[in-house]
């Protein structure tokens, strides 16, 4: 007997909406041909100077910081939605809460199989990093990110483009960048766009600070697990006097361990930054070459990359933290 009824085939509405959007996209690309935007590595400031600190310098609200704040707000909203879903007393969570529950379950089983009894300590760090990085990466998929912002004069070697007014909201002109006829505008002429929201992971400040949090916390978890003997991993005097020759080698290995700990920060930071920044540059280039269909395929690819990179960041945090709790005990047993 068939318990579940298969859904009958019906002509849904969504596919027609998508078809209409594709056709509109063709016309829009004819009316305003896309251009290759100015690619800039440091985040653009979207406000004037907020305040100045003596040594560090001026502080601005940058567009990647705004994206980080949006990601934080989304995370808080998600947490409240899930809290309400759990309080409602339903045994099976539905919708977004159910999806997040499935993700958390998968992550926790991974944490348990890697970290053992330290899973409960390590899991919050890993899950928070995964969720924050995931939401930050997926902001790239929302239309308007990287494309709506303030227009300003191109400076230095930036390639500017002419603008055209399309509407006027309360006295402020709304303009779009248009493709110049014939000869392109030269360097330092025309206008470029500083978007309001740029994906947080395309800013090294975001990725490096997450990496610093991850590495520093893995030291703290290690100290909690092993006490002061955790530091013998780095300054290894255990065999220094009993077996002088091997003792010196062990001491050198410990120093190398110290270097590898710092290089983890760079590796963490540049991996995430490189993947997502290269992805957004790819989106710009593909969008300017083939305006209509191709970007959808690249967006699907970016969806996948964003998920994978978030999982990788969390998984490596988990692995490094559980390595820090393990200490040298089992390593010596295998010698």
């Amino acid at each position, binding site marked *: 007997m068939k318990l579940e009824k298969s859904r009958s085939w019906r002509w849904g509405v969504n596919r027609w909406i998508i078809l209409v959007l594709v056709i509109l996209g063709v016309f829009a690309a004819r009316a305003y041909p896309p251009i290759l935007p100015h*690619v*800039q*590595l440091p985040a653009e400031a979207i406000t004037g100077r907020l305040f100045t600190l003596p040594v560090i310098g001026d502080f601005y609200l940058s567009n990647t910081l705004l994206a980080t704040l949006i990601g934080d707000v989304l995370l808080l909203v998600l947490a409240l939605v899930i809290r309400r879903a759990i309080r409602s007393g339903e045994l099976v969570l539905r919708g977004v809460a159910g999806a997040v529950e499935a993700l958390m379950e998968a992550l926790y089983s*991974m944490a348990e199989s890697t970290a053992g009894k330290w899973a409960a300590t390590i899991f919050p760090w890993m899950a928070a990093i995964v969720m924050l990085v995931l939401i930050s990466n997926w902001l790239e998929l929302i239309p308007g990110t990287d494309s709506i912002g303030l227009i300003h004069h191109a400076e230095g070697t930036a390639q500017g483009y002419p603008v055209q007014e399309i509407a006027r909201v309360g006295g402020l002109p709304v303009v779009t960048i248009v493709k110049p006829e014939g000869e392109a505008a030269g360097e330092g002429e025309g206008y470029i766009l500083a978007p309001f929201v740029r994906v947080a992971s395309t800013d090294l400040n975001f990725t490096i600070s997450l990496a610093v949090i991850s590495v520093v916390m893995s030291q703290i978890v290690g100290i909690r697990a092993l006490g002061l003997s955790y530091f013998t991993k780095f300054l290894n005097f255990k065999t220094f006097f009993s077996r002088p020759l091997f003792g010196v080698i062990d001491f050198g290995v410990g120093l190398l361990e110290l270097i590898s700990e710092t290089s983890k920060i760079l*590796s963490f930071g*540049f*991996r995430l*930054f*490189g*993947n997502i*920044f*290269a992805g957004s*540059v790819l989106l710009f280039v593909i969008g300017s070459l083939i305006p209509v269909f191709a970007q959808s395929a690249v967006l699907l690819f970016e969806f996948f990359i964003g998920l*994978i990179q978030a*999982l*990788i960041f969390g*998984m*490596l945090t988990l*692995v490094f933290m559980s390595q820090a709790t393990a200490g040298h005990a089992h390593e010596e047993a295998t010698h």
Partner: protein
Amino acid sequence: MVGDIVVAATILGKLIGAGLAMVGVIGGGIGIGVVSGGAVQAMGRNPDAAGTIQTNMILGIAFAEATAIYALVVALLILFVF
């Protein structure tokens, strides 16, 4: 005249340098190929362990890819910063 030549040489150096930096991606490509080849063989021999193997494979791919990403970052820095 001399200024034009200097500008042209700067752009030429940038583009050639970025292209040379991307040579490093070869290593990442070989690494990812070796990792996933080994993982597929292991899954073929022991299909029950596919889940664990896949997790480890993705971790290994991420490590192999990291070096390629460093090359990419260097190329992007050359193109867009200097």
